[in-house]
């Protein structure tokens, strides 16, 4: 099953999505079954080529199997479906309806992934190759213009011209800070000290975020190429990719990619016959969230505990081992080859005034189509959640969207038409962060959300400076007593005041943004705090101490679903008659509230 057969004989390609989501749902079994059934299959004149690709982004519908060139996408494929796929689709060219995606509105069966609402609004730059290539194959990458940007830079451009192109693109760092990438490179280039280092920050730690993971797993060579282009600008000879050790597949694919790039002469001495010599080392992080902060990451590479330092001198001047260092995030690196190949202007034509290009978001939570999406900057939250994401499942109400990772903020429904970019999100009390979007419906308690993220940060911050460490300890204690129904109205002022000091005086960006979950929920959902404190009631029915559920006898159809779901048998009643919750037995877990299809279970 050689790659070049494909072009010569135009044979079929079968691509099984083996991203982390699809793998968890059994993609590897599908792949193994296909391999077994296709190997030496006498029924084919030319046996189809089988490929394991990176994440297609539509994790909700995985495992996905794409068949090219017909461009057929099968969703939620199981190993048992393989025989039918071979028999009907591969041999006879028939489509299997039950495996196609059916548009929930039009009820139409869509043959290709690219016809779905989930894909149509997307614009893939950083994710351009993912799902289209086998990440373990350098040939696949090269076939899709891989390393062409490097060749263009080395042969036809001076380092200054390359830098100019990156500046012109308006690209800003995708890791959270949003610092202009070109200006960062320029600052480092100006420092007349060598050696210079280049680092790829792959320490993605936000709960529910997996865009960098997907790129490292699905298209590792684009990162290497981006770093090589930067190395040419800075005359750097050494680079590091810092990836968290939990990202097993990313470590595997990056290791393979580095070896392949060395073998093919893209890494090493005199690359492509030029004077550029550059090599990359993989550093595996221990999984501390704070190591995503660049100065902490540098400390970690040096072998010290990952703690940030005051950034009054930037890493571009004094970074790794005190040398000038450029550190960019995975997604930033993935954009570089495209900018060089197609020009900075073309990239800058996408996006908003202050934020150019596209951004990858991981769309999770209470939304129909969870997954990874790449969209132009300036798209509205409404478009992402309702058009791409397909809206809120189970007919629930949208309540808020949390962006920017744990130290981002919650944005309420009245801001759904916000055109999102670095600046608008910050203005509204949240942030872009690395691009996490967590959708919340009306069964979410915003005080509990604030407590949850504050707790995450309290244990995941480094604990070095007083305002962040002790501030988080205080915020957590206050929020905990509010969700337990022991809060006082003065607590709200206290939350505000402590948050302000954290913003002013914390050492790093993590500490300065850590109060965002508290401040944004206080700003947009203060009534919920008040309900917890004054009424001793959790309106969303989440906080066990403050919730009482009851069944509306008028609405209850006696379907017994709640009864079946109740873990403590607290619900009594005969079928087709109104049910009753035994309050002395109820543990307020909310199972009945969430499962009732007739909205008969109410929060008292």
């Amino acid at each position, binding site marked *: 099953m050689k790659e070049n057969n494909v072009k010569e004989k135009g044979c079929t390609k079968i691509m099984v999505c083996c991203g982390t989501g699809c793998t968890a749902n059994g993609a590897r079994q599908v792949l193994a079954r296909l391999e077994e059934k296709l190997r030496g299959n006498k029924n084919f004149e030319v046996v189809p080529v089988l490929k394991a690709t990176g994440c297609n982004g539509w994790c909700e519908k995985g495992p996905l199997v794409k068949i090219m060139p017909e461009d057929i996408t099968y969703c939620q494929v199981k190993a048992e479906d393989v025989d039918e796929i071979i028999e009907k689709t591969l041999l006879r060219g028939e489509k299997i309806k039950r495996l196609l995606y059916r548009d929930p509105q039009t009820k139409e069966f869509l043959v290709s992934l690219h016809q779905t609402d989930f894909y149509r609004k997307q614009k893939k730059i950083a994710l351009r190759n993912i799902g289209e290539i086998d990440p373990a194959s350098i040939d696949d990458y090269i076939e899709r213009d891989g390393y062409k940007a490097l060749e263009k830079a080395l042969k036809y451009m001076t380092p200054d011209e390359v830098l100019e192109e990156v500046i012109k693109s308006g690209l800003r760092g995708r890791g959270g800070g949003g610092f202009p990438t070109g200006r960062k490179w320029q600052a480092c280039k100006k420092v007349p000290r060598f050696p210079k280092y280049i680092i790829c920050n792959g320490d993605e730690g936000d709960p529910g975020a997996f865009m960098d993971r997907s790129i490292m797993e699905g298209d590792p060579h684009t990162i290497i190429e981006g770093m090589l282009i930067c190395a040419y600008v800075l005359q750097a000879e050494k680079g590091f990719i810092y990836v968290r050790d939990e990202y097993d597949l990313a470590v595997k694919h990056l290791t393979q990619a580095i070896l392949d790039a060395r073998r093919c002469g893209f890494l090493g001495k005199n690359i492509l016959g030029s004077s550029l010599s550059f090599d990359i080392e993989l550093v595996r992080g221990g999984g*501390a969230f*704070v190591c995503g902060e660049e100065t902490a990451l540098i400390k970690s590479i040096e072998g010290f*505990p990952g*703690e940030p*330092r*005051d950034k*009054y*001198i930037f890493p571009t001047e004094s970074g790794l081992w005190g040398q000038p260092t450029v550190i960019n995030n995975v997604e930033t690196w993935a954009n570089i080859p495209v900018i060089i190949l197609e020009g900075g202007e073309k990239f800058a034509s996408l996006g908003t005034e202050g934020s150019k290009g596209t951004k990858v978001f991981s769309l999770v939570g209470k939304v129909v189509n969870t997954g990874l999406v790449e969209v132009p900057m300036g798209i509205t939250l409404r478009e992402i959640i309702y058009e791409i994401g397909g809206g809120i499942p189970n007919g629930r109400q949208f309540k808020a969207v949390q962006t920017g990772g744990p130290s981002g903020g919650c944005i309420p429904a009245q801001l759904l038409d916000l055109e999102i970019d670095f600046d608008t999100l910050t203005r509204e009390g949240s942030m872009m962060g690395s691009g996490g979007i967590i959708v919340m419906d009306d069964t979410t308690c915003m005080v509990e959300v604030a407590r949850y993220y504050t707790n995450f*940060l*309290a*244990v*995941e*911050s*480094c*604990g*070095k*400076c*007083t*305002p962040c*460490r*002790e*501030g*988080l*300890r*205080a915020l*957590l*204690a*206050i929020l905990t007593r509010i969700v337990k129904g022991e809060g006082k109205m003065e607590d709200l002022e*206290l939350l505000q*005041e*402590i948050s302000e*000091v954290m913003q*002013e*005086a*914390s*050492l790093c960006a993590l500490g300065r943004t850590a109060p965002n979950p508290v401040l944004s929920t206080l700003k947009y959902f203060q009534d919920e705090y008040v309900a917890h404190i004054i009424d001793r009631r959790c309106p969303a029915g989440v906080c066990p101490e403050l919730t009482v559920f009851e069944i509306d006898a008028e609405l209850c159809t006696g379907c017994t679903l709640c009864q079946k779901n109740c873990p403590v048998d607290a619900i009594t009643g005969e079928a087709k008659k109104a049910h009753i919750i035994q309050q002395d037995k109820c543990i307020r877990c909310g199972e009945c509230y969430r499962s009732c299809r007739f909205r008969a279970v109410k929060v008292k």
Partner: protein
Amino acid sequence: MKLIIDGREVSAYPGETILEVCRRENIFIPTLCYHPAFKGQGVCRMCMVELEDENGNRRMVASCTYPVQEGLKIVTFSAKIDKVRKNIIRLLASRAKGSDYIQDLAGQYGVEPLDLPGLDNEKCILCRLCVNACKLMGSSVLAAVWRGIDKKISTPYEEAAEECIGCAACYEVCPTGAIEMKEENGQRIIWNKVFNLVLCQHCGKAYATEEQIALVERKTGISLPALCEACRSQNLAGRLKNFSG
């Protein structure tokens, strides 16, 4: 180079921090994690000052880590700075309920500790001066371990550390009395380790541990007379007197 601190022009050397210049110029900035023997750490954040740009916009920086630049305009006291310092003291007082020093400081700043389920009788404020002192002594036994609100100062695995020489530099430098040390029957107990004390040949005072003397001798290659600091100075003075005749 010239700086303007609180409207006054002040000279500074390149490489100095704002705090170092202020200390020299007798401009008061409170600190908890700073000690002139070590580099500024930026840990306690008590030393926050404001920088003013040409448009009059201000931003807060830690004076103990901010390197001076020509023409920098610095404000060392304002309502905003006062609020930050008071809140930092309040947060530390809520943490270190067992430290008289911090509780007194809270009194001076006029702040009440928060009513939080705290650490029991905690004295440590994690200023890390002990970690710096230990490193400077050449042992590097102490470190700030764990993360976030669980951060604490510890020896490796909280066990008696082989490299600890019992010099008690950590104990001496600690501003809040958080490090426990016991001396009795010619022995010193610190960081879960017992040391034999060496007595001064001249005055009989216990002045160092055996391990401490061994380390100094190994590092310097000089065998030291068993004298305490006071007697050693006296001895040296006596010899110098003979020398100068």
